[in-house]
């Protein structure tokens, strides 16, 4: 028998193994294309710039990875870093999530082992794109698991494949996983999806095997990202809601208890997490549900043995007792400090004004701002309006798995609405929901079997009975054409939306998310690309021209970059673990030279680095961040620093001649505008960020006595100052400067006055 046959009725019969083979081939090729799309759309920055680590945090991760590759794992875990947070240092090994570094160092070792040594930097740069293709695979499995267990959504693999491609290129996920953004989220989202898939699978099957796998991936997730708390809370919530719906069964019991006990034990092996899972309130929900499950199990047993009336009475008394004991013990334990209260970041999710009032350092991060609707559309495109439809379909047949999706969507959309960065956790569930709705649509409207059948039948009928019932058949055919037309309208519009989605994603990725922010891209007047490479220029200068143990003071945003690129000691960095230390640096920047010199000498500063964008109009500079320095240091020293005094009487934030005296005297201001006038010759200098014009005379009068300019980058973005050594005769540096200016000023004045008429004539 051959593989393809034509049977007696004229149907084509194909051998099932061949069909399966074709199916496999098709799915594999689809996956290869999805991976290709996912990876290649993340490579814009590598192609445009070069293989470079982006932004801030990735620089630290990169540095830590290099340390891990060069030292042993145990040395890494015990790593005390004396090059940051000078003079305190940081117990880095115990205060980081090692998952990312371990992953890339393992990949590095594997490549080395098979004889393909690859530079660790390239592995770090390309880790995120590689994991993104795994994420789409996990997405496929998750959606397949959800759709296959419900009767209405049991529609082959359309939805699952759609979700994979959605996830592969959605900007909401790309934003954190372009090549070079070597951050925890790069692998964490993959792990999140795998964990969720395994969880759904294990609750579906009630299998210990899958529950164990869930906890193993949960452990991996804990080791990789602080956002693991999301899993720690969403799984118990899912189980809790299932219990409320009266869906308790042994499958749920088995998978939850296995996951909880193994997962908690394993997560405690991470040094940074330690005993948090049994001591912090963030984890209490999972513990509570664990206890509740035991009680429900017990109640189930009682229900089988006792008569209904007795059972009811016992249950009532029992549940009352449990609630009271549970609540009071929770409160007591919190009060006596056995359980840590909620962490500040967690608090700010619920009480949205909390961070603004109590933790300015959290509020100062732009990622912690609420999300406007345009960001949702920007990151998710048309999936955002398919999202509610998917939720609707999940309700249509309410399996345990779809309850999970519902819980996830409601919670995820709330969190994403409160904090921009949590868009990342929302994006996967949006992909699932959108693909479920689109999958159903395509299932209904891409099905042309009926139409074809009617045509075929009418043709064969007209061939046999020529005269009878022709009108009726015609009607049928007409109808079917109309149906075909309507189906085509729907299908074509939606295929167009898909095309639009791809266009949108590519555009967003290329324009918004592919800038390394270490190298800035700009356009020349003639349209050609201009790269502004001031950061690397300055960091390289530091690396080459300063002593190896020089201490650089800069605002915390640049701490990781200085550590990673310049390899010099910093005072504060993006880890922000010590608010007082940050406030000290903030105070040194915001008070006048006199007071600042004292702070800097106490800290042991050698160089000060500021970012200044006024010359070329780079808005992310220190003068714009200055208010946060003031605010944070005001939180500690309200008597020395006062935010109000940096604003003019009219409440304006000015930096020109009208600026307040506190502003003009502050070290940050002086460092930014020192010699700014020289760049403009005799004309008035203009700050292109604040759009304010200083008078030339005033701008020339800005002086610095305790610091001397050591380096200013090509576009003035980075300016580095050296703290002058103490005077040999013990004189005050500021008074020396004043005396010198007094002696100079007569000649200078004469020169200026002599020049003036010429100037006027020229104009």
């Amino acid at each position, binding site marked *: 028998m051959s593989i393809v046959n034509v049977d007696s009725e004229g149907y084509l019969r194909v051998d099932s193994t061949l069909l399966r083979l074709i199916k496999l081939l098709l799915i594999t090729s689809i996956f290869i294309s999805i991976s290709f799309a996912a990876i290649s759309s993340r490579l814009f920055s590598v192609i445009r710039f070069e293989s470079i680590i982006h932004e801030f945090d990735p620089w630290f991760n990169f540095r830590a990875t290099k340390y891990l590759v060069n030292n042993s794992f145990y040395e890494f875990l015990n790593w005390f870093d004396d090059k940051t947070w000078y003079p305190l240092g940081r117990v880095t090994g115990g205060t980081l999530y090692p998952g990312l570094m371990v992953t890339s160092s393992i990949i590095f070792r594997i490549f080395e082992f098979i004889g393909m040594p690859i530079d660790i930097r390239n592995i770090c740069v390309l880790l995120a794109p590689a994991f993104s293709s795994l994420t789409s695979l996990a997405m496929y499995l998750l959606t397949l698991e959800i759709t296959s267990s419900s009767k209405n959504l049991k529609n082959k693999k359309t939805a699952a494949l759609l979700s994979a491609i959605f996830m592969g290129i959605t900007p909401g996920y790309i934003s954190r996983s372009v090549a070079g953004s070597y951050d925890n989220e790069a692998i964490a989202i993959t792990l999140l999806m795998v964990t969720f898939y395994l969880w759904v699978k294990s609750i579906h099957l009630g299998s210990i095997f899958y529950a164990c796998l869930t906890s193993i991936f949960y452990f991996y997730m804990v080791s990789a990202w602080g956002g693991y708390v999301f899993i720690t809370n969403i799984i118990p919530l899912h189980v809790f809601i299932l219990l409320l719906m009266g869906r308790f069964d042994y499958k749920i019991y088995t998978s939850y208890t296995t996951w909880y006990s193994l997962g908690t034990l394993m997560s405690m092996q991470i040094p940074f997490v330690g005993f948090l899972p049994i001591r912090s309130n963030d984890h209490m929900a999972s513990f509570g549900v664990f206890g509740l499950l035991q009680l429900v199990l017990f109640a189930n047993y009682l229900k089988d043995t006792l008569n209904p009336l007795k059972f009811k009475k016992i249950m009532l008394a029992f549940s009352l007792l449990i609630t009271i004991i549970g609540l009071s013990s929770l409160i007591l334990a919190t009060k006596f400090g056995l359980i840590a209260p909620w962490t500040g970041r967690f608090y700010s999710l619920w009480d*949205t*004004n909390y961070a603004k*009032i109590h933790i300015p350092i959290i509020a100062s991060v732009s990622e912690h701002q*609420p*999300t*406007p*609707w*345009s*960001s*949702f*559309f*920007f990151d998710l495109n*048309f999936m*955002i*309006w*398919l*999202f*509610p*439809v998917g*939720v*609707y*379909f999940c*309700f*249509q047949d*309410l399996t345990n798995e779809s309850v999970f999706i*519902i819980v996830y*969507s*409601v919670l995820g*959309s*709330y969190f*994403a*609405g*409160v904090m921009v960065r949590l868009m990342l956790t929302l994006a996967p569930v949006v992909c699932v929901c959108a693909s479920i*709705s689109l999958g*159903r*649509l395509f299932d*209904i409207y891409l099905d042309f079997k009926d139409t074809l059948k009617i045509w075929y039948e009418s043709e064969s009928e007209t061939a046999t009975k020529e005269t009878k019932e022709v009108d009726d058949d015609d009607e049928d055919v007409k*109808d079917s054409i*109309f*149906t075909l*037309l*309507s*189906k085509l*309208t*729907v299908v074509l*519009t939606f295929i167009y*939306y898909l095309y*639009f989605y791809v*266009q*949108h994603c590519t*555009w967003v990725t290329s324009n918004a998310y592919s800038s390394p922010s270490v190298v800035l891209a700009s356009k020349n007047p003639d349209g050609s690309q201009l790269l502004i490479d001031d950061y690397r220029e300055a960091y390289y200068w530091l690396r080459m021209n300063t002593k190896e143990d020089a201490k650089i003071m800069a605002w915390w945003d640049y701490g990781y970059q200085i550590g990673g690129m310049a390899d010099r000691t910093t005072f504060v960095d993006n880890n922000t673990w010590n608010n007082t230390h940050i406030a000290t640096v903030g105070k040194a920047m915001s008070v006048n030279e006199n007071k600042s010199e004292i702070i800097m000498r106490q800290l042991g500063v050698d160089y000060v680095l500021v970012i200044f964008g006024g010359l070329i109009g780079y808005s992310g500079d220190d003068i714009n961040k200055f208010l946060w320095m003031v*605010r944070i240091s*005001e939180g500690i020293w*309200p008597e020395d620093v006062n*935010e*109000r005094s940096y604003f003019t009487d009219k409440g304006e934030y000015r930096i020109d001649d009208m600026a307040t005296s506190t502003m003009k005297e502050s070290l940050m201001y002086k460092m930014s505008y020192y010699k700014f006038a020289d760049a403009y010759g005799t004309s008035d200098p203009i700050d292109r960020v604040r759009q304010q014009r200083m008078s030339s005379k005033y701008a020339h009068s800005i002086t610095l006595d305790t610091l001397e300019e050591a380096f200013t980058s090509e576009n003035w973005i980075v300016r580095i100052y050296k703290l002058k050594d103490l005077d040999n005769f013990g004189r005050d540096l500021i008074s020396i400067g004043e005396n010198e200016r007094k002696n100079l000023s007569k000649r200078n004045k004469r020169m200026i006055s002599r020049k003036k008429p010429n100037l006027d004539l020229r104009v």
Partner: protein
Amino acid sequence: MASHSKQQALQINDKNYKELINNEDFSLVLLLTASNPQIGCVLCTEFMPLYNHFAASYYENLSKQGSDQKVILAVADFIDSRKYFTELQLNNVPKVYYYAPTAAKQMVPNSEFEFVASDPYRQLVTWVVAATKLSPELFKLVEKRDYSNIALNILIVVGALGVMYKGQKKIVKMIYNQRGWQGFSIIFVILFTCGYMFNVIRGTQYIKTNKDGTNEYFIPGHQAQLGVETQIVSAIYGGCTLAFILLTDKLNSMKNKRNKNLVTILMSVIIFLLYSFLVSCFQEKKIGYPFWLLKF
């Protein structure tokens, strides 16, 4: 003067202000405000309860400690004391002034409070203590126990419990109503994806009116948003959701083929129009967005 009802700040009006500023025994902390909504002073309305609480705490502490009163806390509202305001030559409110004894006649305050964004209560106390040299103990916040509020809460809880007991079955039915939860979740999701939380947290204004009286419905940029934007966009999402559900779920049960086809086409046209409107809205938010479906 000091013998007014001791629980709140002294209200000043056109009649009694002369008496107040002519007194020679007390120093004066004075809040000048305009609570009239027509004037539309947001800071005034925000600051007023705080100041009242401050004054109430002060008098409460004073009576508790039994010490002599040296400072009068007073409020002057623009509606009641226009004369005083003109004499002070004020052109903006709110202001908090401190006058040493006998200084009020000269109108020029000895010290003025500077409004700050963070923790205004503490700032106010620090300032008053610095000006009056009184002990900060006097200004410690006294939480008033509002018994009527507590009683009301108890009543509500009891009432709710009663209703719950009476209508047990109905409530249980409501709780277990799948449709209700479905609608609730969908509305919830749409609301949050339309930037509702942004409006709540930032307290954005509802609509922007230009100088020529026209309204603006969208502000460009991801940093700002108007209240009306959320409403427009959530209406679009809602419309799309409904049309999509009709297309994929409800139409299957329709018997008449012709009508079914008509509705199908109609729905996809509606979705197309709504979506293209959404894209054009987005173009207003993101200047330079190159794609569009239909230009509105």
